[in-house]
Every structure is written in C-alpha cells, then in structure tokens.
C-alpha cells in the first residue's frame, strides 16, 4: 500500500521537528561518541513509522509513538551490543555526563530541551571549523539529509559524507561532551553558537545553490535555532535577539528578491509590496528586546542595517545611517563584503565623487563585486571604463543569475 500524501507530509514535518530532539536525548544518555548510532536509530524509527502508519493508520499520538519506538530500538541496540556495560558506563563514570544523564531514556519536554541545548553547544565546539561544522549542524541539529546538504554546498554526497565522518571522528577523539559550558565560558561559547547560526543563514541567503527550496530551508532552520536559543534563560542574551532580529529583516525580502525563473531582483528594483510586513514587525520586537546590556555586538549593528533596508525611503539620510553603522561594524571586524557595502553606502549617502577614491583603495581585485561597484561609480562619468570593469566582473562571477545581471548592465551602458 502506498503511503498517503497526508501521512507523507506529516512524516516529513515530524522528521524536521523530532529528529534532532530524539538524537539529542539518545546522545545525552549514551554520550556524544554514539551520535552516529543515534542518527541511525532515529532514521530507523522513521522507517518503521512509514511502514506501520501506512498499513495500520496513524497512531493517536504520532510523536509519542516515535518516542516510544525510538526508545525501544535504542535500548535493544545497546542491550544487544552490550555496549552500555562495556563501553558507555566506564566512559560516563569518567566524565561529568554521568551526573546529568538520566538512568532512563527520558522524553520529558525539559529533558529534551536540555539535551538539545547541550547538543547545540557540543556541535559548535571550537575544535571543528568551517564547512564541516555547518554540515554537521545541518545534519544533527536540523535533520538535513546528506543529499540536501550536498545541494546546499553545491557539491556531491561523498564530499559531505567525508566531512561529516571527519567531524564526528573529531567529536570522539577529542572527547567532546554533552554538557553545557560552565557559566564563565557561556558568553564565549554562545558567540560561537551564534556565529554558526549566522553562517547557516548566510549560506541560505547568499547561497551558491539555485534551489530556492533549499535556500529558504537553510534560512528558516537558522531562524528556528536562534528562536530555540531565546527560549532558554541561559542563551537568551541580547546578541541572540539581535541575530534573530537581523534574520527576520532579511527574510522579509525573500519573496521580493527573486524572479519566477530564479533570477536576482536587486534591492532598488524590488516590489516593496512583496516585503513581509509581519516578519519586519517581529524583527523590530526582537531588536527592541536586544537593546539591553552594555555590549554592542556585530549582530546589533547588522540588525540595525537590515532594519534600515526594510524602510521604504531610499534617500541620502538613510544611507548616511547605514554608512555610519558600517563604519562601526568594520571597526569590530573586517570582511571584503563589509568593505564593499560600506563604500556603496558612502556612494549613496554622499555621491560617486566622494566614494570613488575610497573604492580604489579597497584592493579587492579578485572579488567580482568590487568591479561591479567601481562600474556603478563610474557609469555616468566614464562609461567606457565602467564597461571594462564589468567585463572583468563577468569573468569572475560564479553564478548564472549574477552573470545575467552583469550582461544587462554592459548592454545598457553600451547603448547609452
């Protein structure tokens, strides 16, 4: 019997909601070294759900069914392997995990939440870095499949698999534990966690993949993770709310920034009626709540910039504010994208003549946006030079929609 579309939809939804929770609870109980087994057990649980629910119909409480079956399978697995007595217990005795681990596999809301938080901090350990960490977060915290992660990174399954295997080996060999960092370390470790969410969101927002579904899913997952952090006193800090605010503001333009066939709609040409007013309002709420404490994080500044971009007007006053926020951000940290955005804001606030000498100092010749920016500044005064720069940009642009946009500009300037 084929699985009905309703059941399929429910299973997909439950997988998204519950995968990470169950993995977290099992890892909490048996230690992070067994996270891969936990993933397999949860996948196996969902396979059973698909079979049983298709033949027997839906159980009265599908979530409770999943928890019960996951528990059964987990106990059976560890009993069969006799792993607990031989490996897990001695390891746990040696660590602080024993003190916090429950003797039962506990699916109470509190235990699930604590386990997820611990798993979150563990995955965001400074011992793993870069794309491997994001892949691991997508897999373990968001329940993404290997093929989905591969699509998000525009690479193949083998590459992602290798990254995940390496990252998990690191968790084991370094003895990363399912525990919350001690109070004095919370702020530092939380920064790391927030940074991973930030990268996850950017991966979706400025994604290399053209798959619109995956892009949105990445952004939504990043927002879900941040929202989860706001629900716990330990992690509900001003920076967390600022980051969430920033993501709300950016996400509000999702519908407006893309054409039906996957092309890019530049900010200036977006239909402002397509901006999501509810998300903007939510963003403002989080931004208000983030305005406490005495630390102005980069997320606060980025959220303010994102909010200004949600305002309908486009005059020099707004861009002057955006410029000043970029000045502050750059003093906290440098990135080529920030440097380019700062120079663009300078141009919009004070004109091309003021911005051009600053732009020429940036030394970002290998970044195609640098050439696009120079062309923008020169388009009226030196169109021929602008065309030369756009052609350089075209050689460096990686995605087809970007190349299309540059082509259009070259055409426009050539006809002028």
């Amino acid at each position, binding site marked *: 019997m084929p699985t009905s579309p309703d059941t399929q939809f429910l299973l997909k939804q439950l997988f998204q909601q519950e995968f990470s929770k169950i993995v977290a609870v099992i890892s909490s109980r048996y230690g992070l070294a067994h996270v891969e087994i936990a993933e397999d057990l949860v996948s196996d649980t969902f396979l059973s759900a698909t079979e049983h629910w298709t033949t027997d119909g839906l159980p009265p409480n599908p979530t409770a069914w999943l928890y019960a079956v996951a528990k059964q399978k987990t106990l059976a697995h560890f009993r069969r392997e006799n792993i607990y007595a031989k490996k897990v217990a001695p390891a746990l005795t040696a660590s602080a995990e024993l003190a916090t681990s429950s003797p039962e596999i506990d699916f109470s809301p509190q235990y699930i939440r604590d386990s997820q938080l611990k798993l979150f901090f563990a995955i965001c350990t400074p011992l793993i870095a870069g794309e491997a960490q994001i892949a691991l977060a997508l897999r373990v915290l968001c329940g993404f499949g290997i093929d989905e992660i591969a699509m998000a990174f525009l690479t193949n399954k083998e590459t992602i698999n290798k990254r995940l295997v390496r990252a998990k080996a690191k968790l084991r060999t370094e003895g990363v534990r399912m525990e919350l960092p001690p109070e004095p370390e919370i702020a530092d470790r939380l920064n790391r966690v927030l940074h991973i969410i930030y990268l996850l969101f950017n991966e979706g927002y400025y994604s290399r993949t053209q798959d619109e579904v995956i892009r949105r899913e990445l952004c939504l997952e990043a927002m879900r993770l941040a929202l989860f952090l706001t629900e716990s006193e330990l992690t509900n800090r001003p920076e967390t709310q600022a980051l969430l605010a920033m993501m709300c503001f950016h996400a509000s333009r999702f519908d407006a920034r893309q054409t039906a066939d996957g092309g890019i709609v530049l900010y200036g040409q977006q239909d402002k009626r397509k901006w999501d007013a509810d998300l903007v309002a939510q963003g403002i709420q989080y931004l208000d709540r983030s305005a406490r404490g005495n630390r102005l994080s980069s997320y606060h500044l980025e959220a303010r910039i994102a909010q200004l971009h949600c305002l309908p007007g486009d005059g020099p006053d707004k861009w002057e504010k955006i*410029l000043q926020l970029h000045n502050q951000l*750059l*003093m906290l940290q440098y990135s080529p994208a920030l440097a380019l955005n700062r120079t663009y804001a300078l141009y919009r606030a004070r004109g091309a003549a003021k911005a051009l000498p600053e732009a020429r*100092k*940036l030394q970002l010749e290998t970044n195609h946006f640098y050439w696009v920016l120079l062309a923008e500044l020169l388009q009226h005064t030196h169109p021929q030079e602008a065309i030369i720069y756009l052609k350089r940009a075209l050689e460096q642009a990686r995605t087809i929609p970007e190349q299309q946009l540059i082509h259009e500009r070259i055409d426009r300037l050539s006809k002028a």
Partner: protein
Amino acid sequence: MKEFVILFRQPTGSYQKPLPEAMEALEKKWADWTGGIAAQGKLASQGIRLAYDGRVLKSSGVVTDGPFAELREILGGFMVVRAADYDEAVTLAHGCPVLETGGSVEIRPIYQESPA
C-alpha cells in the same frame, strides 16, 4: 605587513570639549576616517582616545594639573594600523581629523625585536 601606531597631537588651544552639535560632527569625521582604514583591512586596533584633562608627575615629585600650557601640542590618543612601510602608513594617516584643526599625526612603527 608591519604595525604602526598613529599618535594624534592637537594644538593646546583647541583641546577642549566641543559643544554637543560640534561633537557629533567631529565623531562622524573620526568614524569616516577610521572606517575608511578599516575598509582596507588595515585597522589593527582602534586604540584609545584620551580625556580632556590630566595630571603630570615630574621627577622632582611635583604633581601638576596637566602639561597643557607648557606644550604646543598635546597627545589626544592613538590607533594602530597595518601597513607595508612608512609610505603606506603615512598615506593612511592622511585625512585624520586632527590635521584639520592644526594638529599633527605622529607615525611610529611598533618596536619589534629583530629575529635572531
């Protein structure tokens, strides 16, 4: 890339707290200049700005309220930049707001022990 300290020296007469409106404009000038250096990835440290008063301890043990009357220029603060050489560091120092009010900028490489 070497690191250079950029010291801001201001004429004694101009070294007093400006009015709030002027302060805002001045802060913007500093932010624009610093932001421009940071946008080149060459800001190593924002450094510190010194307050508008001070005490001086002389070798005689005498403490006075600031050296200001005796000097033509006083130190207003510093920042640290990354530059390949003196030329580049001096180029970065151009545009420092103290230059607009008759002050000067001193550029000093950070002392490094030469490798053995």
